[in-house]
């Protein structure tokens, strides 16, 4: 049987949390339920699952790559333009320090941003089931489950006081 999404629209955080409780009682796995809001709510406000992520790895990878790029860029350009100034060595560390530092930070920040996009599962090319009222303060409870369970989901939504129920 195919899995299909079903969306309940709620006008308050409490009723959305009640819907979450109802879905758990109906045996819907936590991983199949998403709460869609227009602002961040405290973690666990809807009794939702914890979301593990690996974002903290990205800045370290980026910093390493940025530092390497900075060292290569500065050392190779110094060797490529061998002008002796003030009797100082051609390959000199002090002029490299700032550029290497900036390279490290730039790498860390670029990779962090890539990490945010990747870990947020963006960009989402195919629009899923959604309701525009969510950005007007309504809360969407999106359940992606077997069609056979849709009647139980609808019952849970109804009991919690959904203002609308949408199917794909």
């Amino acid at each position, binding site marked *: 049987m195919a899995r299909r999404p079903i969306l309940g629209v709620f006008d308050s955080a409490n009723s959305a949390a009640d819907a979450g409780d109802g879905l758990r009682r109906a045996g819907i796995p936590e991983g199949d339920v*998403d709460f869609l809001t*227009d602002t961040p709510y405290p973690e666990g406000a809807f009794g939702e699952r914890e*979301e593990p992520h690996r974002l903290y790895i990205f*800045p370290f990878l980026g910093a390493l790559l940025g530092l390497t790029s900075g060292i290569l860029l*500065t050392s190779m350009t110094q060797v490529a333009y061998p002008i002796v100034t003030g009797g100082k060595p051609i390959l000199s560390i002090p*002029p490299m320090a700032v550029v290497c530092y900036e390279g490290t930070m730039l790498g860390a920040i*670029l990779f962090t941003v890539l990490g945010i996009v990747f870990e947020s*599962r*963006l960009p989402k090319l195919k629009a899923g089931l959604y309701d525009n009222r969510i*950005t007007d303060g309504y809360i969407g409870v999106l359940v992606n489950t077997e069609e056979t369970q849709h009647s139980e989901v609808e019952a849970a939504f109804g009991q919690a006081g959904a203002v609308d129920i949408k199917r794909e």
Partner: protein
Amino acid sequence: MQEGRVLSTREINRDLLRSILESPRWFWPVVTVLGLILLVAAIAIGIMVNRGLGVTGLNRPVAWGFFITNFVFWIGISHAGVMLSAILRLAKAEWRRPATRAAEVLTLFSLMTAMIMPIVHTGRPWRILYWVFPYDFARGIWPNIRTPLVWDPSAILTYLTSSTLFVVIALVPDFAVLRDHTTGIAHRVYSVLAMGWEGNARQWKLQIVAGVLLSALILPVFVSVHSIVSWDFGMAAAVKSWHSTVFAPYFVVGAVHSGVSAVAFALILLRWCYGWQDYIRHEHIDALGRLLIVVATGWFYFLVMEILFGMYGREADELMVRQTQFTYWPYNFWFILFVITTYFIPVALWLSRAWRRNLWIMSLACISVNIGMWLERFLIIVPGLINKQMFTFVWADYRPSIFEYIIIGSTFALVTLLMLLFSRVFPLVPLYDVKEGDVLRTQIQIGRRTVPATFRED
């Protein structure tokens, strides 16, 4: 720090998207006037490029004048965004919410404007290409790759890229709001920008972590940028009075001083232009005023130390620069005006709570700081270069020409214009941040007092 009423999501959307979904009557006339100012500046730059830098007051030895002064000034303004946004985000200060986006965007546009100044200053802007692309010795050009001036573009480009990403990442949830409130082409554009954002728990968690993580990463870059700008001076062997060891922190604190003042003034203007009284409240301007007293006093300490330590060594070059600043007309006048406008007038005004909450007085104080901070950069650069020391035949003075005045004036029009155009297509107050503040806000009774209680975001 929780004044004002709790607003519904619809009210927040309506108020904060008004600048995008409707054009105020004053909008296009103001944009036209600013555009005309920029047109005049473009003509002035065209004439300068055609005739050469001779049309300016720059000479030998005063090779850095208004353009470089203005470059340092706008770099300074750009420090406000990250200072406010990142530090307050890390400190989880509730009152940051409406101020962060405007501050970050001011960072972007002032950085872009700052970057234009050295290009204009070259007099032959296309020669920038010689630095960007490899140029071989066989053509008689001997680029010095190890010059400290290379540090500047690397730091500024890092800061600009980071700040842009910082703004864009925080804009994604607001793009989704715009996607849901527009139709036609605008809807399609905002849909692409929103990248399919739906606001699930995972996306919000990463958005919050991202704010903290990027703040922590961008703060060291923010410190590096203006300290590197100070080393543009500190590393210049030719001018001995620029070698003070306090230059880096002195420049950074000065930048924060002028930048935060500029943000406070920009917020007051936005409140007035778009009627955002419920969002940019007196408590926010009051908090910025209190912060500025601390920053201004820290900056004043560095100013005094820079002068004292400079003179303590009794080196002839240093003493000559101080003599120029303190006794030669018109520099002595500019110096007195600089100290009064940067510290004594604004701090005196900020000491009173009632005056910090008076938006006219706060505007006056913030403008005063920025007049003073512009003069500060001028007084570091020009008296150091006019070279009243050693050999009289290299003495010179600096009289800026009308071209320089026009070009400098136009940079203020440019930043204002870019801010206005930004506000026309993107929200200048972060919607989700304001909504989150309202979700987390409640009041508790302690004894006979009702006080705000806020759940701090994770």
